[in-house]
């Protein structure tokens, strides 16, 4: 008898391959005749390339070709889906420092890199717009407003509130820095292109590449079986991968392009810098009367993702009669932006939950109690009920696990030697999104069942999710399932690995595909003349735990397939949300509690411990879930204390390397106690899973900032919270 693996601690099925180095990533493919490309990037912030001297590069040993705006590779202009709004090398405009202005191809990587350094360019330089503060306020994008009857404006609602709080916060650019630097290996065979390139959505990426190269979609196959991190950075296709494919076509041989770590900082999009102001109006007991959320987000002239931090945060979080969200975008001459894990929600909830903490301080209401007094059971703007919301239980369980009752509200009231101790909390939310998705289940005559979906495992555990759900559905051990993702040639309809939507969307598709495959296997068993069940009515044949049974006979599917001489039997199914889903607002929720210490004399901030409790629906794999939630909380430590890449007036990132752009290391990371409520969402799917890849990052920085205030009495509004701001 097989025990269901759902919700248990399951090792990732791709783990052994990864730790032994035998999982091939994009840069690991070495087709016959391979040559190597290296980027040349603009060294001015804005202007025009007047001319380029490529003579030394072309004469350098091993160089095969040098492409520039004056000797371009043809690419079509992008459609709306791309991260950038231009195609590289098609004109001489320089839109930002680090824009690709050349591609050198040589017989080795080192020779290509060496020759790229020999290319020089002359520019006409125009001043760069780089400061969000100087270039703002931006152009309004999405105004969300709801006012109670009789209220003329949000300002009027605020003015009539007994207590008001105004909080402005800012943060610089953030970088995804996926562990695998961007890499592409492009191979043409006749007019058929295979691209090995990390991608969050292999089918969308293949379609984009086809469109930009001007070939039929069917001519492009993208393989990203293993991808070393996505975080949003691998959802569009960037110019570098397109140039690699175009160079392979022009040179009629396979080309590989691997970016250096530093090139990734500028050639690939970052999370936009953003400034926000929250205004809260409340009763003396903390109940909200008005909430205003204004933001100015960076929008590069070169294109990028629109930073809208209020829509999925302040418009959803609390019961408030008057809400106004004004999201503006400021055009700057910076490298492109793109969504980054909890793209708008992490900065947006940092702003809101910082303001809520200030409201708690002002009103003297405990921060947990303040949030319960403003608890929303329905979407405060649109009025839809939440499909399933147990945030109140998250607060209660979290406070108990953490020992919140031991906190003292007065800052600087708890010490340990020269260390000031503080505790803070914040609530988290993130939209749950189910997309239509397809999957294939295939009974094979080697005794395994291949479960496939054209999504991507960017390190999240999608392989294992397919295996666990397939095993559960078919009553087989997890080891009997061969999971497949990361290939655009899999059946159409795989979902992209973004928006925390893969598990939510794909689990129902896998279940449907497994059921359909069982049906097909039974049908095959009664139809095939060599089958021991030939001629029986399908209704009399049943499938149970890998065996076909009827009339007292029981045959495992491997034996059955071999007896019938059929290598495999499969089914592809698509599963989409019910129509009734539109009545509900789907969100994940969570509550973070953390303790920090800040050195009284040096200002060094350290996170002592962290407890987070989440309401994310039904969990497929406890081990993967804990990994995702813990990892995202660690990102929150970076968000609060370390990560920032200021941009200088000449358009240069000040911290575009891993020596200067600091992310948390083990020594910065305390024990993190992650817990989730096991409450399946009854409306999102029969299975009840909501995605959890991003919610851990939402508000974990705010909890740290709030704890730092409790420790020191200092409220840092400009992230990150660094030593010199705490003296």
């Amino acid at each position, binding site marked *: 008898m097989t025990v269901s693996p759902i919700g248990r601690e399951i090792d990732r099925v791709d783990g052994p391959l990864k730790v032994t180095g035998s999982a091939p990533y994009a840069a690991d493919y070495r087709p016959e005749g391979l040559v190597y490309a290296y980027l040349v990037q603009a060294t001015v912030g804005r202007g025009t390339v007047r001319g380029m001297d490529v003579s030394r590069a072309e004469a350098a040993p091993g160089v095969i070709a040098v492409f520039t705006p004056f000797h371009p590779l043809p690419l079509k202009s992008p459609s709306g889906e791309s991260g950038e709004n231009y195609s590289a090398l098609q004109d001489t405009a320089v839109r930002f420092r680090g824009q690709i202005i050349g591609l050198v191809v040589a017989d080795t990587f080192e020779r290509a890199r060496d020759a790229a350094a020999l290319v020089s360019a002359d520019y006409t330089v125009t001043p760069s717009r780089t400061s969000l503060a100087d270039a703002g306020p931006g152009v309004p994008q999405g105004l969300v407003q709801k006012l109670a009857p009789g209220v003329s404006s949000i300002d009027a609602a605020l003015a009539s509130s007994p207590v008001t709080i105004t909080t402005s916060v800012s943060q610089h650019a953030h970088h995804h820095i996926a562990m695998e630097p961007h890499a592409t290996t492009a191979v043409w065979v006749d007019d058929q292109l295979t691209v090995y390139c990390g991608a969050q959505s292999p089918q969308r990426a293949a379609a984009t590449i086809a469109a930009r190269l001007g070939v039929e979609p069917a001519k492009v196959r993208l393989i990203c079986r293993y991808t070393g991190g996505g975080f949003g950075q691998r959802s569009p296709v960037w110019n570098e991968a397109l140039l690699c494919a175009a160079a392979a076509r022009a040179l009629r041989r396979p080309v590989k392009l691997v970016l250096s770590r530093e090139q990734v900082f500028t050639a690939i999009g970052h999370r936009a810098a953003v400034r926000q102001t929250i205004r809260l109006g409340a009763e003396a007991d903390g109940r909200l009367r008005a909430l205003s959320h204004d933001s100015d987000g960076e929008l590069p002239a070169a294109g990028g993702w629109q930073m809208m931090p209020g829509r999925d945060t302040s418009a959803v979080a609390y019961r408030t009669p008057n809400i106004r969200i004004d999201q503006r975008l400021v055009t700057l001459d910076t490298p492109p932006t793109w969504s980054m894990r909890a793209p708008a929600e992490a900065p947006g909830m940092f702003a809101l939950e910082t303001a809520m903490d200030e409201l708690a301080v002002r009103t003297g209401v405990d921060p947990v109690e303040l949030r319960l007094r403003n608890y929303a059971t329905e979407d405060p703007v649109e009025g839809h009920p939440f499909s399933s919301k147990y945030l109140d239980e998250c607060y209660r369980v979290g406070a108990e696990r953490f020992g919140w009752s031991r906190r003292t509200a007065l800052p600087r009231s708890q010490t340990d030697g020269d260390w000031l101790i503080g505790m803070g909390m914040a609530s988290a939310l993130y939209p749950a999104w189910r997309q239509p998705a397809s999957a294939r289940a295939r009974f094979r005559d080697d005794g395994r069942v291949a479960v496939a979906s054209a999504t991507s495992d960017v390190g999240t555990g999608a392989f294992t999710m397919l295996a666990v759900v397939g095993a559960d559905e078919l009553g087989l051990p997890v080891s009997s399932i061969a999971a497949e993702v990361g290939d655009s040639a899999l059946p159409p309809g795989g979902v992209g690995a973004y928006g925390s939507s893969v598990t939510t969307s794909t689990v129902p598709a896998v279940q449907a595909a497994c059921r359909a495959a069982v049906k097909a296997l039974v049908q095959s068993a009664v139809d095939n003349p060599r089958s021991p069940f030939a001629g029986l009515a399908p209704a009399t044949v049943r499938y149970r735990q890998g065996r076909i049974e009827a009339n007292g006979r029981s045959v495992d599917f491997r034996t059955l397939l071999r007896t019938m001489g059929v290598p495999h039997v499969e089914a592809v199914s698509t599963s989409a949300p019910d129509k009734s889903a539109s009545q509900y607002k789907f969100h994940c929720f969570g509550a973070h509690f953390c303790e920090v210490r800040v050195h009284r004399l040096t200002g060094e901030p350290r996170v002592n411990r962290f407890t987070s409790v989440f309401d994310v629906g039904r969990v497929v794999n406890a081990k993967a879930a804990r990994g995702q939630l813990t990892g995202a909380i660690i990102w929150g430590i970076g968000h609060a204390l370390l990560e920032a890449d*200021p941009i200088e007036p000449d358009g240069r990132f000040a911290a575009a390397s891993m020596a200067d752009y600091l992310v948390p290391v083990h*020594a*910065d990371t305390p024990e993190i106690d992650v817990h989730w409520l096991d409450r399946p969402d009854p409306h999102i799917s029969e299975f009840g899973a909501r995605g959890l890849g991003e919610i851990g990052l939402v508000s974990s920085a705010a909890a740290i900032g709030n704890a730092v205030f409790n420790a020191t009495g200092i409220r840092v509004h400009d992230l990150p919270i660094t*030593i010199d701001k705490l003296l």
Partner: protein
Amino acid sequence: MDFLRPTSLADALSAKADQPEAVPIAGGTDVMVELNFDHRRPSALLDLTRVPELATWEPTADGGTRLGAGVPYTRIITELGARLPGLAMAARTVGSPQIRNRGTVGGNLGAASPAGDTHPVLLAVDAAVELRSVRGTRVVPVREFYTGVKRSVLASDELITAVLLPRAGGPQQFSKVGTRNAMVIAVCSFGLALHPGDGTVGTGIGSAGPTPLRATEAEWFLTGELADGDLWESPKPLTDSVRRRFGELVAEAAAPIDDVRGSAAYRRHALSVLARRTLGWAWQDYRTGGDQRCA
């Protein structure tokens, strides 16, 4: 670019004499960064990792230690924690385990960055640097070694072959402030050595000036206070005013600038804290460890 791989010190010295522009490389934790960023393109690299003479340490006749320039930080931590306590403390704060497996004190001196983690301790213990060339050997006190930002007295035909460290006659300390808890360039750092034998103290400041610096005034002040109070013989707790003044003098000795890691004002402030802190630890160690040392 030539890649020279001598297998003996004699070969290495003659290679350096023949090609003075060759850049010596040991662990590569500084040189490779510069090459990868295309900050320099030397005509030759002189790989010192196969020179056995550089990879050993031995006791000296006067109880000190001769540390080969190519001994990595990991070995300093595991083999020399007792002999070279201050240097081992500094070595523990360097980079990651992988960096500590590769990086060397010789490389730290060769790069001569003011942010190098070992300089404050080398200054505090009054170490000396052994420089060799085909012309001969000279020994330069580390206090005279640094001449400017990433510059030293090292001649173009010379190699750093060893560091000579006196016997640790008393407690040594090292402390560093970084923007995160590990794998970080120091915002500022401080090394302290107490020398009960001759009644003096040594200091070293990192990341707060164009070169690693001594806090000479602070050394004189503390030496005088310890002598005046006869504290070496009858060690009492140091008064707050002594510790505070010591910290102030250390801060005054620094010449920091504002940069992305921290402001000049923060560095001065933090140095005074580090100086007080390390002095507190070292003096406590002297007072409580004194009996054991006598026994």
